[in-house]
């Protein structure tokens, strides 16, 4: 970090401290609640929730059908609702169609299933380009799809949160839900990646 960046950051830090102190002094906020919010999103809510959901859909055909028909209720049955996670929609990948999720207007994202969004998801390059040139975005992630595959992009413009259901990798017959969950990356549930292959992960 260079000198100018450093002084810039200090200015931001000072503004944050001043605002927190003022709102706390007024009694509008409880700093302990902010500590708890930070801890919650750093340690308690993350992509493992979504990975469990995907692994269950891969192994339990009744659950998978429910997830397709009433995504919100099926997610709720696993207690995976929460802030920025009230209404859900499923985008299921097939050999013919790959799905990708974006919020071109800002950063809408299924927090309760995937945690807080990564910086790139909120960044101008992703928001601007995935919507009309998704193959070039996939290239930025080192992902290449078959030429024949159609791509469907879901722009999250309301309070419906989209989750991509990646395809189950070949060679995973007989794997347990817990084992399968280890193959489900965050990016595979946004659509900028695919589920890992058995060869790519130590079983």
């Amino acid at each position, binding site marked *: 970090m260079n000198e100018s960046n450093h002084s810039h950051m200090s200015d931001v830090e000072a503004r944050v401290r001043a*605002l927190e102190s003022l709102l706390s002094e007024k009694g509008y906020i409880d700093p302990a609640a902010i500590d708890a919010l*930070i801890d919650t999103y750093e340690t308690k809510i993350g992509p493992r929730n979504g990975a469990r959901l995907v692994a269950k859909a891969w192994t339990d055909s009744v659950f998978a059908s429910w997830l397709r028909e009433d995504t919100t209720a099926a997610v709720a049955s696993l207690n995976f609702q929460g802030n920025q996670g*009230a209404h859900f929609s499923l985008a299921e990948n097939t050999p013919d169609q790959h799905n990708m999720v974006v919020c*071109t207007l800002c950063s809408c994202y299924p927090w309760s299933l995937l945690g807080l969004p990564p910086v790139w998801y909120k960044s101008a390059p992703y928001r601007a380009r995935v919507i009309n040139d998704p193959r070039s975005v996939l290239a930025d992630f080192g992902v290449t799809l078959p030429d024949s595959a159609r791509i469907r992009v879901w722009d999250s413009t309301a309070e419906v949160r989209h989750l991509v259901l990646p395809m189950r990798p070949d060679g995973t017959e007989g794997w347990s839900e817990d084992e399968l969950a280890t193959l489900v990356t965050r990016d595979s549930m946004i659509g900028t990646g695919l589920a890992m292959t058995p060869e790519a992960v130590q079983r």
Partner: protein
Amino acid sequence: MNGVHDMGGMMAFGPVEPEPDEPTFHADWEGRVFGLNIAASATGAWNLDMGRSARESLPPAQYLASSYYENWLSGLERLVVKFSLVTEAELASGSSRGPARPQRNVLVADAVPKVSLGSGSMTSRPIATPARFNVGDEVITRNMHPKGHTRLPVYTRGKRGVVERVHGAHVFADAHAAGLGEAPQWLYTVRFSGTELWGEDSDPRLSTSIEAWESYLDVG
């Protein structure tokens, strides 16, 4: 509002840069800004859509040059003054110069699990009128340019699409952000072809959808 936040289709921003093992927050202050936004909005002084509108209304050059959490900070500084939680002078000095205004709620630490992991904030609402559109209906989005908050991206205006899902009635973001109440409307997933959105040069294998409130749509 036709702001720079509405980025779909803009060019020359460079590559997307994935970050291996990315931390939730890249500095302590980012976590504080995140938590401050959640806690301050929990007072009930403003709603989610007003919060989004505040960030979108930042000066365009500032919005583009700032990081995500810097914009959250700048948006929050505007909100606390606009909704009279503090005065400009208090914000500038960082200390209170008068009594607080009564608020509906103060988020305490014990309530954080319920807020973060509870049932979420449902935006679906009962509605007396039947849905105007059904799955499979052809629609055209309005060519509209409201000065206030809207969730109809510029790149989808005046475009022909097909209703793919019907989500029931939801709080209408445009009205809610303007302080006009929840004014629920039917909400649809509308799918467009790449060529409809981007012209003949578009990848013919591409399609895109948005969630659109009923008043964004006409019969196509």
